[in-house]
């Protein structure tokens, strides 16, 4: 062998930085309707191509086309639109509330509303989501009371989590919404365990795991896929690829070399790659995967391709690391605009009705905020009693926590 040359490290760099020109040419986007729709009992190996395509239903003209176009009536579509609009209005309000000092922190899902809102409609009562912080739509699509969510965000006296968690880390068992962890990825393998339990128990319930594309690098992602591969439990494993993990573009998570849907191939798990800004495509893919799970055919991984249109959180300023206009250049458009257009094309909706709905929703959200503020805010309280912080460490409070509670009270 000839004398080798000096090696060098490949460090991924995004196509554009602040001041640069947004470039999404690497996101190959097929036309709506193009991707084939296999039967749910297809073998994982037979649909590898779908991990390199994008399942899309809504075309540029707002029509639902191709084999994935679901049978949703106008009512269901309007409900979907409303869920997304409410989610967005809720987020906008809470971002303002955070800036006004009413809470410490906020995370919105701007631009990603279709994913959670449409996915939820594929589930049944009793099924369980294991969400990240970016799926409030799972709750809002079920008409879970906004006030209760705000109570959590404000850590006020009615906060169901008693002021213990940071904003948006909800837990709503009765809505099939697992306690959100501040630690990335951990809940993904728990979703697999929950689904295994359903199978062990001869139950019919299905679990859904959620993770961001950045967090697929975490260990729990691999553990989840290994256990899902081996035990074939009824779980849908969702990856939300919103192109960013805080400041890091998806290349830092490995996106330069393969899609996140393709991660499933090495485990023999079927996977789909879906337009995450297309309410109909999300709904159709979710139904397909949930049906597989329900029919004991095992797990499915779905990559939802979307774009985080807002900052990572209220603490973040994306203009430091990506072009300001990047969001507008995102080729998959805005999920609300796209569904609205579809409804208009169907003749079931109009600009006027939309504007009216928007006004009603803003009013609803504002009213909810007023009510939640009456229950208190982080800044001004009231909160759950301070002594309650010693509860729920264990089911029964042991002596040392009782002792510490007394010490705390003495020093207030």
């Amino acid at each position, binding site marked *: 062998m000839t004398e080798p040359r000096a090696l060098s490290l490949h460090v991924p760099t995004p196509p554009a930085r602040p001041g640069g020109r947004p470039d999404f040419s690497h996101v190959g986007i097929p036309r709506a309707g193009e991707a084939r729709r296999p039967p749910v009992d297809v073998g994982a190996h037979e649909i590898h191509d779908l991990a390199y395509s994008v399942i899309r239903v809504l075309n540029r003209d707002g029509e639902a086309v191709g084999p994935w176009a679901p049978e949703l009536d106008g009512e269901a579509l309007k409900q979907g639109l409303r869920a997304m609009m409410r989610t967005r209005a809720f987020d906008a309000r809470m971002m303002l509330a955070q800036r006004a000092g009413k809470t410490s922190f906020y995370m919105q899902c701007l631009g990603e509303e279709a994913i959670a809102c449409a996915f939820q409609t594929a589930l049944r009562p009793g099924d369980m989501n294991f969400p990240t912080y970016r799926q409030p739509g799972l709750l809002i699509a079920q008409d879970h009371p906004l006030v209760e969510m705000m109570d959590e965000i404000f850590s006020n006296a009615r906060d169901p989590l008693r002021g213990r968690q940071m904003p948006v880390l909800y*837990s*709503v068992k009765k809505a099939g919404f697992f*306690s959100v962890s501040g630690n990335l990825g951990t809940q993904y*393998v728990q979703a697999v365990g929950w689904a*295994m339990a359903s199978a062990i*128990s001869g139950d019919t319930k299905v679990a859904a795991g959620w993770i961001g594309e950045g967090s697929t690098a975490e260990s729990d992602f691999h*553990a989840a896929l290994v256990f899902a591969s*081996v035990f074939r439990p009824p779980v849908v494993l969702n990856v939300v690829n919103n192109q960013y993990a805080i400041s890091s573009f998806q290349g830092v998570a490995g996106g330069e070399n393969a899609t996140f849907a393709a991660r499933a191939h090495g485990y023999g798990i079927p996977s789909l790659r879906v337009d995450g800004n297309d309410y109909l495509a999300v709904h159709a893919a979710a139904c397909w995967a949930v049906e597989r799970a329900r029919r004991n055919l095992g797990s499915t991984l779905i990559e939802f391709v979307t774009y985080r249109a807002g900052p990572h959180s209220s603490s973040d300023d994306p203009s430091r690391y990506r072009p300001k206009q990047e969001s507008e250049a995102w080729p998959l458009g805005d999920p609300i605009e796209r569904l609205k257009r579809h409804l208009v094309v169907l003749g079931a909706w109009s600009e006027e009705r939309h504007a009216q709905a928007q006004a009603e929703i803003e009013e609803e959200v504002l009213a909810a905020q007023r009510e939640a503020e009456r229950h208190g805010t982080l800044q001004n309280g009231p909160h759950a009693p301070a002594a309650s912080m010693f509860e729920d460490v264990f089911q029964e409070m042991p002596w040392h926590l009782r002792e510490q509670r007394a010490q705390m009270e003495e020093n207030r």
Partner: protein
Amino acid sequence: MPRMTMVEAIRSALDGAMERDARVVVFGEDVGYFGGVFRVTDGLQKKYGASRCFDTPISETGIVGVAIGMAAYGLRPVAEIQFADYMYPGYDQLVSEAARLRYRSAGDFTAPMVVRMPCGGGIFGGQTHSQSPEALFTHVCGLKTVIPSNPHDAKGLLLAAIEDEDPVIFLEPKRIYNGPFNGHHDRPSVPWAQHPRSETPEGHYTVPLGHAAVARAGEAVTVLAYGTMVHVAEAAAEETGVDAEILDLRTLVPLDIAAIEASVRKTGRCVVLHEATRTSGFGAELAAQVQERLFYHLEAPVLRVTGWDTPYPHAHEWDYFPGPARVGRALRDVMEAA
């Protein structure tokens, strides 16, 4: 009453729990068909079927992670980590998830589960088959930590742990799986059958968590010990003639502070034992508590006899292990003090 080894007693607990409660599922590396590398789960797959007792992939993250999901669903998972030394890859799931779930969801979700793991040295397992990581659990609020020293307690504590509504770490000192061991590695090994605490009921009973036992009553000095070290303490007391009161703590969190206080109040002296490395070991917590609460009763400093602050060395196992000579020395030192 039947006499059992630790292995048999733990198996009996699992068997009984699986029999009584269909929610109990048992899994881990090699625990299914093979019955575990220490044979603890032998026969359970055959009896209860592969979906209640099965082998897992080699992923401690996965084992603990799926256990949490199962517990949140409503099952009672009992997971085995093949050696306590291998729990670290699953540590995040234990600390950030199992321990926190009830708290962060204000009781909406809980994780009633048991994670069993053989611990401790004395089998020439070197640094990766000998560790005693209990302090890494006791520092984590939301976890209970249990460690039995004999078959009777092992079964009763394990049943209590499985029935507990919170996650419990169940440490099994592997050196005493098949017979008690007092640290005299050069003497013939003794079978459990000769030990009174090997008498283990066949049926269901629990040893409640949070309660210490008096392994030896005495007046001169209180020894706080658990697991294998209880037997070493007994040997040291006998050999030195020091009239030690030996408390077998059994549960480290929640600690039986009342039993500790009562004994030290009586004796005025205290020695704390463990096999784990010394710095920031659980002995530090015990010493800190005893002097905080009983300072004016103490006639001598609380001494610790522990493993050294080195990895467990393969060839020098017996210079590492805190055997009866080192414990005896501490007993005499604390008696001679002031």
